[in-house]
C-alpha cells in the first residue's frame, strides 16, 4: 500500500509515461500541495531503483523497460475512478484542470465541463463527450488537486476567467453576480483572454448601470466593454439582475 504522496507522484509518472510526456516535479509539489523535500526524495528513490529517469531540468519520466512498464501498470491499477473517470485514469493532474467554480451545484450542472489541458498533450487525448477541452499553456495558471473530487480543479478566479474566455454557454455571469463580494475580479481580468475580459467588463458595465452601485475595481471595465457582447447577452443580463418578475413589472 503506497502512501498518499507516493501514490500521487507515481500516478503522475505512470499516466505521463502512457502519454509519452515527462512530469515536472515542481508542478507535482504545487498542484498536490506536497512537501517538496519528500517529493524529491521519493523521485530520487525511484531513480535509484532504475524505474524513473531525469528528462531535463526538474523533469522526470518512467524509464522504457519491462520492469518499469510493469510498475506503471501496477500504479495505474490503483486509480480510484470517480465522476471524471477518463481524466483520473489517463491524464496527469499536473497537465490539466477542470474549470468549474465552487458551489456551482446551486446553479445546476453544466451540460459540458470545461477542461483546460496543457498544449503538450494536444493530439494525445480522446476525452469522452461531456467535456469541452481547451489546449493551452498552463504556465502561470492556478489550479489544485481536489482530494474530494479526485481531479484537478482551477481556483475560483482561474475557473471564472477560463469559463468567460472559452465557454460562451456557461452561466458565468450568474456565478459572478452571486459571488461579487467574494471574487477578486482583478485577478479574473488578469487571467482571462481578450474575449473573456470583454465579457467580464461588459457585464460589470451593465451591472454598474442597472444596480447603481459604484462597483470599484482596479481596472476600468467601461473602457473594455464590448458592444457585440452587450447585444448578445442583454436579455440574459436583464433576467439575472431583475429576477422574480421585476423585469416584467417595470417593463425592463
Amino acid at each position, binding site marked *: 500500500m503506497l502512501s498518499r504522496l507516493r501514490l500521487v507522484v507515481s500516478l503522475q509518472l505512470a499516466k505521463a509515461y502512457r502519454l509519452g510526456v515527462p512530469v515536472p516535479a515542481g508542478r507535482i509539489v504545487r498542484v498536490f500541495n506536497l512537501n517538496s523535500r519528500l517529493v524529491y526524495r521519493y523521485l530520487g528513490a525511484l531513480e535509484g531503483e532504475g524505474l524513473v529517469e531525469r528528462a531535463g531540468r526538474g523533469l522526470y519520466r518512467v524509464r522504457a523497460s519491462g520492469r518499469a512498464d510493469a510498475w506503471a501498470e501496477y500504479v495505474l491499477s490503483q486509480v480510484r475512478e470517480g465522476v471524471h473517470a477518463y481524466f483520473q485514469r489517463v491524464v496527469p493532474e499536473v497537465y490539466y484542470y477542470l474549470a468549474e467554480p465552487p458551489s456551482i451545484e446551486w446553479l445546476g450542472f453544466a451540460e459540458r465541463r470545461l477542461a483546460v489541458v496543457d498544449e503538450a498533450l494536444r493530439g494525445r487525448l480522446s476525452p469522452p463527450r461531456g467535456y469541452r477541452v481547451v489546449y493551452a499553456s498552463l504556465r502561470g495558471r492556478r489550479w489544485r488537486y481536489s482530494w474530494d473530487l479526485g481531479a484537478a480543479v482551477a481556483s475560483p478566479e482561474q475557473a471564472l476567467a477560463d469559463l468567460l474566455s472559452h465557454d460562451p454557454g456557461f452561466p458565468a455571469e450568474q456565478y459572478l453576480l452571486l459571488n461579487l463580494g467574494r471574487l477578486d475580479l*482583478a485577478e479574473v481580468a488578469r487571467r482571462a483572454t481578450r474575449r473573456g475580459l470583454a465579457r467580464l467588463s*461588459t457585464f460589470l*458595465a*451593465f451591472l*454598474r*448601470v*442597472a*444596480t*447603481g452601485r*459604484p*462597483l*470599484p*475595481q*482596479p*481596472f*476600468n471595465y*467601461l*473602457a*473594455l*466593454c464590448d*458592444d457585440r457582447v*452587450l*447585444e448578445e447577452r*442583454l*436579455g440574459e443580463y*436583464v433576467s439575472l439582475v431583475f429576477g422574480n418578475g421585476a*423585469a416584467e413589472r*417595470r*417593463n*425592463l
Partner: protein
Amino acid sequence: MRARWGGLEEQLELLRERLRLLAPSWSALEEALGRLPGAEGLGRGERLDVLRGLERAWHVMRVLRLLSEHFAVELVFGGGAVLNYVYMPQHREPPRLTFDLDASCAQPVGSKRLLLAEAVRFNRRIDALGQTLPVPVGRGSAALLYVVEYDAEKDFFPELLPLRVPVVTRYDGEPFHRFLGIRDYRLIAELRAVFGEALGVEEARIDYVRIDISLAPAGPAELEELADVFGARARAPVTPVEHQLASKIRWKLARDFGEALSYNLHDVLKALADLRLLHHVDARRVLEHLGGRVDLRAAEGNVRALLERGRELWSRNYHYALVRRRYTLEELAARVLGALRGLSGG
C-alpha cells in the same frame, strides 16, 4: 480611456485633472449668477443658497449636453431645466432652480432594457472622452462617478425610465467617503486635500442629477441651439416651448386635483413660475396645443389654494429665491392667470 488606474499617486493626479474639467469653479458660478435677472437683490444667505443650487444646475446642463451629443435626434429634451436655464434667461426672467432633466424618446421604445443598454454605451463613450470621474477607494481600485445609472427606487411607471448621475458637489448630497464606503482614514485625508485644492471644499459631497426618460414621444420636436446660463451651448431636439407650456397648463395648473390638491401645491407653484413664459411666446400655438380650451376655473381654484395654503413653499424654498426678487406670489399669480385669461379669451 484607461484600462488600469495605476498607483494611488497616479489616481489622485487623474482625479485632480478630471475635477478641473468636471466641476465648475466658484468664480464661474458667481459669474453665471451675476448674469441672471433677480440676482442683484439677494441677501448673503440666499446668494449662497442660489450659488449652491447653480452648481447642481451646471451639472444638469452638462449632462444634457453629453446626452444630446450621444443620442443626437433620438432624445428630445424638455421640462423645467430647459425652460429655466435656457429660455427664462433669454427673456430676462429670473429662473427657478430645478435639478432634474426630462427627456423623451423621439421614436417609441418598447422596453426600458434598450435604454439601459444605450446607457452602457453612453457611459463608455463619455469615459473615452474623459468625462467620467474615477475616485480611488483603496487597494488600487477606483469607483467611477459621473456615469449614468438606473434609479430603481424611483421606477414607478412602465413608460418612464428614471436614471441618475452621481456628481461631486461642494455642499449637497452625502460626504464622498460615506457614499463610496471608504474607511481608510489616510486615503480620506488624501482625497480631502485633492477636493480642497480643486473645489475649495475638503468635505466634498456626492449628489445625483436625475434624468427621467419617457419611452413614448412627448409630442413635436424642434432642433435648437440651446445656450444655457453658464455660457455653454448644445444643439439638441427640444419639445417646442409652447407645447411644454400647454402641458404645464393641462397637467399642472389647470388640472382638477380634487381632494389631492394639498399634495400637489408644489407642482402648481412650479407650473405657475414656469408659465411666466406665456408672455414671451406665441399664445396661439399654446392654445392650439391645448385643443383650443383652457379650464380657467380649475386654474383659478388651484392658484387660490396655493395663495391660501402654499405660501410657505414659495417663501422658504431657495429654488424660488431669484423669482421672489422680482415678483410677489400675488403678482406671479395675477400675471399668469392674466395670460391664461388672454389665451381663453376671457
